[in-house]
């Protein structure tokens, strides 16, 4: 028996002998796995490789976000896709952080990416990593618990131009052009332009609510071995869906946003152990809405004179600027790596124009809601990772954030720390655990919309621990992750009065089971199931999961997926389970030209969003996405 087994093993070895063609093929496959940036020491990571993005036809970032465990993506009152904590529909800005390469994408106003970088097309993206862990320990800037790192394609691996065109059955479209080159002097660049038309419409009380709009993106990146310069611009204009209207049906409304950033990184010394980064972000946003039934605009309402203060027209234009400077030094030894860094961030916020008109047609120049319009955050960071033995690595982080604020807001200091360990006793078993204490400070937005009885919101304080076990068996991989989070002073948006610090500790727990099986070199099955508990009233799914199958055969790529979110009840409304089934295929006519078709939400059972019709009135339910067919082509030249 053993002889037969040895013969089999030898034959297999000959079959995979390393010819130059085989090596080139393997090199391309290894690159498609996109594992070069994974950093296990900064959290629990979910990884979307270039191969997976291509096979699964993930077109925009939201295609990935909506399937993530212990995560919900719904539409808010403005028709924008909003990530929210499991079990809630609370838009906790700051909980989620988004980075493109090493630059944090968000507005300095509300720490949100929805208006500016929301629904980012993935045509120029190589891979996406989602970390459950504290982002600011590694990047210095604002804190966050769950963060998404988006990596653009590497120009030296592209050296080509690429055109992506797509249209869906609802007449939404996306058109992209990417160009990248490596120059003789070692510099390389990547440039990306895109225009997308988004469509979101719902029928409500014989009227159509819509958030139809246009998004445009321009991204340019140039780098060599020690320097990197990135500049990007995006703008967005759309209708405002239900908006702020008390009856959820605005008479007229629009949203516009323009966002620009430039980011410069320079490494010094032969081992690149000194890193400097300087970035500047500017965000301009306009909002207009009118509604004869009134608008529930929290900052201007006087509950004792509602009739005079409820506006029927609201017109606003804001500008927010953010400057960030970061300096770090790494000391790397055989078993110990120590990093120390300082970061300074300055944010300012200007109201160019803000007026309201009330039921008596009196127009008021509201100006700034309060005198808090600049903030400087100074941070000191230390991080140490120590290899105790071949199979045990210990990690420790500490960070102190000093917030200096103008106006009525007092200065404050947040102290953050984290300890963790990674234990890999064998090649096929690994354990990882972290305990983290962190805080998320209030933003200009939360202060503007804070409840009138306590405008000076405190930082939300998070304490959480996580444990992950990973087991590989041949072509299978199993991951189980448990988390327990306790939140003090949670900043919650009460629709009637605005943001307030919750006066008790909120607890949430989550358990994620994940299983991957490689059926062959080109085909993969992926299962995920999660369940969670929340100490508060639930108004969103708490359980969910997905089944994905993807693969390729000769000139064909194919996939199918089912994303499940469980049913729940909120007050008098029962929200049914969501079963979002999609499938698609790509035909490669040549190595450089391919056509794709993707059918989204075949069963028309997408997740649904809860809206309150009046401030304390009935609730309505709207689908987050419709059934649609998307056809596209990719041409590389």
């Amino acid at each position, binding site marked *: 028996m053993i002889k037969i087994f040895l013969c089999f093993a030898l034959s297999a070895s000959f079959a995979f002998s390393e010819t130059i*063609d085989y090596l080139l093929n393997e090199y391309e496959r290894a690159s498609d796995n996109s*594992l070069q940036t994974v950093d296990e020491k900064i959290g629990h990571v979910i990884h979307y490789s270039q191969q997976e993005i291509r096979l699964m036809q993930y077109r925009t970032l939201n295609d990935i976000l909506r399937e993530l465990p212990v995560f919900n993506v719904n539409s808010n009152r403005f028709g924008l896709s909003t990530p929210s904590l499991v079990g809630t529909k609370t838009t906790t800005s700051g909980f989620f952080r988004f980075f493109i390469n090493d630059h944090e994408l968000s507005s300095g106003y509300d720490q949100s990416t929805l208006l500016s970088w929301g629904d980012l097309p993935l045509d120029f993206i190589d891979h996406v990593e989602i970390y459950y862990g504290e982002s600011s320990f590694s990047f210095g800037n604002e804190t966050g618990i769950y963060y998404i790192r988006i990596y653009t394609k590497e120009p030296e691996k592209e050296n080509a131009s690429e055109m992506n065109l797509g249209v869906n059955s609802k007449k939404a479209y996306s058109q992209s052009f990417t160009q990248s080159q490596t120059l003789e002097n070692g510099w390389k660049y990547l440039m990306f332009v895109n225009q997308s038309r988004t469509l979101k419409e719902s029928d409500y009380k014989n009227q159509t609510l819509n958030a139809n709009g246009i998004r445009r993106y321009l991204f340019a990146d140039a780098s060599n071995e020690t320097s990197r310069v990135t500049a990007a611009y995006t703008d967005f204009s759309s209708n405002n869906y239900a908006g702020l209207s008390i009856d959820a049906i605005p008479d007229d409304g629009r949203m516009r946003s323009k966002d620009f950033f430039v980011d410069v990184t320079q490494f010094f010394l032969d081992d690149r152990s000194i890193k400097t980064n300087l970035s500047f972000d500017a965000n301009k946003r306009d909002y207009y809405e009118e509604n004869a039934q009134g608008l529930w605009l929290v900052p201007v309402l006087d509950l004792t004179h509602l009739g005079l203060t409820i506006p029927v027209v609201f017109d606003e234009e804001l500008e927010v600027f953010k400057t960030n400077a970061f300096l770090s030094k790494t000391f790397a030894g055989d078993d110990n790596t120590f990093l120390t860094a300082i970061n300074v961030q300055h944010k300012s916020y200007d109201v160019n124009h803000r007026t309201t008109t009330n039921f008596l047609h009196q127009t008021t120049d509201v100006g700034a809601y309060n005198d808090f319009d600049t903030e400087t955050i100074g941070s000191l960071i230390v991080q140490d990772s120590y290899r105790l033995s071949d199979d045990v690595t210990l990690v420790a982080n500490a960070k102190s954030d000093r917030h200096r604020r103008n106006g009525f807001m007092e200065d404050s200091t947040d102290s953050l720390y984290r300890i963790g360990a990674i234990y890999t006793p064998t090649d096929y078993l*690994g354990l990882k655990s972290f305990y983290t204490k962190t805080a998320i400070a209030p933003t200009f937005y939360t202060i503007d919309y804070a409840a009138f009885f306590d405008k000076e919101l405190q930082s939300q304080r998070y304490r959480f621990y996580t444990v992950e076990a990973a*087991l590989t068996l041949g*072509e299978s991989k199993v991951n189980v992750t448990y988390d327990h989070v306790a939140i003090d002073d949670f900043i919650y948006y009460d629709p009637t009065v605005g943001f307030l610090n919750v006066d008790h500790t909120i607890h949430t727990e989550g358990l994620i089971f994940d299983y991957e099986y490689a059926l062959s070199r080109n085909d993969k099955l992926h299962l995920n199931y999660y369940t969670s508990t929340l100490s508060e009233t639930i108004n969103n799914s708490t359980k969910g999961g997905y089944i994905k199958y993807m693969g390729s055969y000769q000139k064909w790529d194919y996939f199918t997926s089912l994303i499940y979110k469980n049913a729940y009840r909120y007050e008098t409304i029962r929200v049914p389970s969501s079963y979002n089934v999609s499938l698609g295929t790509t035909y490669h006519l040549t190595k450089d030209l391919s056509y794709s078709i993707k059918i989204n939400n075949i069963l028309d059972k997408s997740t649904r969003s809860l809206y309150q019709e009046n401030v304390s009135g009935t609730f309505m339910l709207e689908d987050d996405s419709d059934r649609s067919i998307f056809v596209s082509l990719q041409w590389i030249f």
Partner: protein
Amino acid sequence: MKHFILIGLLTIFTYAENYTFLVKPYQKEIELEAKIITEIAASSLNEPLKLFIPEISKLEKSVYAQYTTLSATCEDANFIFINKNVDEKSICRSKNTLYFTNNYRKLLSDERYFGAFFWNKSRPNIVFIQRRLQAHRIHLPSSFEQFIESIE
């Protein structure tokens, strides 16, 4: 039967391509690059390979050393692979040394290089320039003929 199951399980664990946690730096791509460069260099030389990579990183050094003999200096090497943007003047020039690059534009503009290993349209590529192969009297095996181009 017990032996068979035991050997089967060991094989499964040993040949598992999956990883649990990537605690150490990911080096699969550098391993494959090292194998390809070693294959190209060994096929181009009539003598044992002594490879030199200017400004070689610590990780590259440990990986490349598994597949070939690394030369500490430019002068001792018979094959030089330039995969970074280094000062051209710092690289020694010798008639008997072969020069290879990872930059296609450099290959086109600099006569010193007889070939390049680079990416194009998201795919790895190898190009040898026929005239320069002849000038160096390099006879490549038939499996490399597909990469030879008659660029002037």
